[in-house]
């Protein structure tokens, strides 16, 4: 942080001249990239629609209000389905992710050369495919319905939980394992008494966190036919019944806020 002498007084500046120039160059390049990308997007945009969108939005809001409150009672079953998709999907995902995480953690994997890359590949590919795309594929196989949603959410959760869990396994305290080993414990006993207690807090918080995300994800898998509130949403948007759509949106907000509240409560209780 240099002090620069000007004619008759000193001023303090945050950076010297070189750093200032570097910063300026970064900003310049960033702006250049941004305007280049934006130009490409805007060349594919019909600006008339964009400038007209506020009218469209007002029109839509006018159609959405007042919401058809009676419709809420038909939504109870889809909401229940959505919660189930998230909960059972998370359970399946976390259960499968446990062995995968043990296979891909550096310190517990049986073979670093062969099994670890395989397990890591499973984790990465599950992470890169969005649950909607999983649902799209699964609806074709097991048919539309809640089951496809559960499996889609489960498959998507494997990667997320597996990745965070194997990072937690890699960070465990080796001394505790050595202490257990010194008592003459076998491999399984080392696992249950040395490793599991150390990763249990991480495991709980990961599963709760994923459950919270999955509530959100479960609202959309229905759009491609995989059960839950998304099916209703798709049907009502298709039928242009906007007064019902607003009820669905409200229900989603309530469900998400509720799940956030529960996760915060559980986390405070456990950790």
């Amino acid at each position, binding site marked *: 942080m240099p002090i620069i002498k000007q004619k008759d007084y000193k001023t303090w500046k*945050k950076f010297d001249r070189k750093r200032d120039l570097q910063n300026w160059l970064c900003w310049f390049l*960033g702006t250049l*990239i*941004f305007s280049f*990308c*934006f130009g*490409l*997007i*805007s060349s*594919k*945009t*019909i600006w008339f*629609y*964009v400038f007209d*969108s506020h009218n*469209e*939005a007002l029109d*839509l809001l006018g159609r959405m209000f007042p919401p058809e409150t009676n419709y809420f009672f038909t939504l109870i*079953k889809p909401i*229940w*389905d959505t919660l*189930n998709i998230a*909960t*059972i999907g998370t359970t399946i995902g976390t259960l499968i992710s446990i062995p995968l995480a043990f296979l891909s953690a550096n310190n517990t994997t049986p073979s670093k050369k062969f099994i670890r890359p395989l397990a890591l590949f499973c984790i*990465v*590919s599950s*992470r*890169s*495919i*969005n649950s*909607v*795309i999983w649902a*799209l*594929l699964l609806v*074709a*196989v*097991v*048919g539309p*319905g*809640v*089951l496809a949603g559960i499996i889609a959410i489960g498959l998507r959760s494997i990667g997320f939980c597996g990745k965070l869990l194997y990072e937690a396994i890699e960070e465990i305290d080796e001394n505790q394992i050595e202490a257990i080993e010194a008592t003459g414990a076998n491999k399984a006993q080392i696992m249950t*008494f040395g490793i599991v207690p150390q990763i249990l807090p991480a495991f709980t918080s990961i599963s709760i966190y994923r459950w919270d995300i999955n509530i*959100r*994800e479960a*609202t*959309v898998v229905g*759009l*491609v036919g995989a059960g839950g509130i998304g099916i209703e*949403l798709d049907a009502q*948007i298709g039928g242009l019944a906007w007064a019902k759509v607003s009820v669905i*949106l409200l229900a*989603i*907000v309530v469900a*998400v*806020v509720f799940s*956030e509240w529960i996760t915060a409560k559980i986390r405070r209780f456990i950790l």
Partner: protein
Amino acid sequence: MNDKKVIWKRKPLIKNRLLRIGLILLISTYLLSVFLTTEIDWQRILEGIPRGKIFIFAFFPPDFTTRSDEILAGIFESLWMTIVATIVGILISIPVSLGAAKNIAPKFVYFLSRGVITLSRSFQEVILAIFFVKLMGFGPFAGMVTLSLSTIGFFAKLLSEDIEDINKSQAEAIKSTGSNWFQWVNYGVQPQVMPRFIGLSLYRLDINFRESAVIGIVGGGGIGSTLNTAFDRYEFETAAAVLIVIISIVMIVEYTSSHLRKLIK
């Protein structure tokens, strides 16, 4: 010496016995009620397995060449969308995250900003995209708006938590020099949250690219549109190629962003 063997038992996870049994009962009733209320059509699944096999085999061999122009155009569109949306989203998130930090904002602004964050977090990108496509027409602009708005919920929430954790004495030192509010934020708060800021931006860039692959399915432009077109034309070989391209790009983006994040730490 007494012959009584001393047996060590592991402590139970939950100390209160009543609570333990109650929880087990609660979970089992829940599972039972789920099982009873979900209709699973085993007939359909049995029928579906050979159909699924045909479906999956239709993906092989992946066909990169026939529609290579569309695939390339889709990827680049997704990339532009991701970059612009991340930048715009972060620019909007900065004031929101300042407002959502308890130690900076007055109560009224705090609740307003928290409301914005909750609203943006409640809706999945796909649902937002449906509405923006309806409002602004098909194409990457609607996708970009969707991604920018959903960036706010993620970015502002995590950044505001970091702002709440700043070292107070540093901020106070700046204040005691007689700085105004903007100088205080610029010299007292911003340098402290900068590492987290850069890390979060890279992470969000990675997420936005992944999401851009799905919002195309509902008309938001990008590689998702290419995927959707391929599905609609029953060109599953092309769809497989698009999926492979998405997976590999996501992997590349994820590795670079996690590597960069480690480098910055």
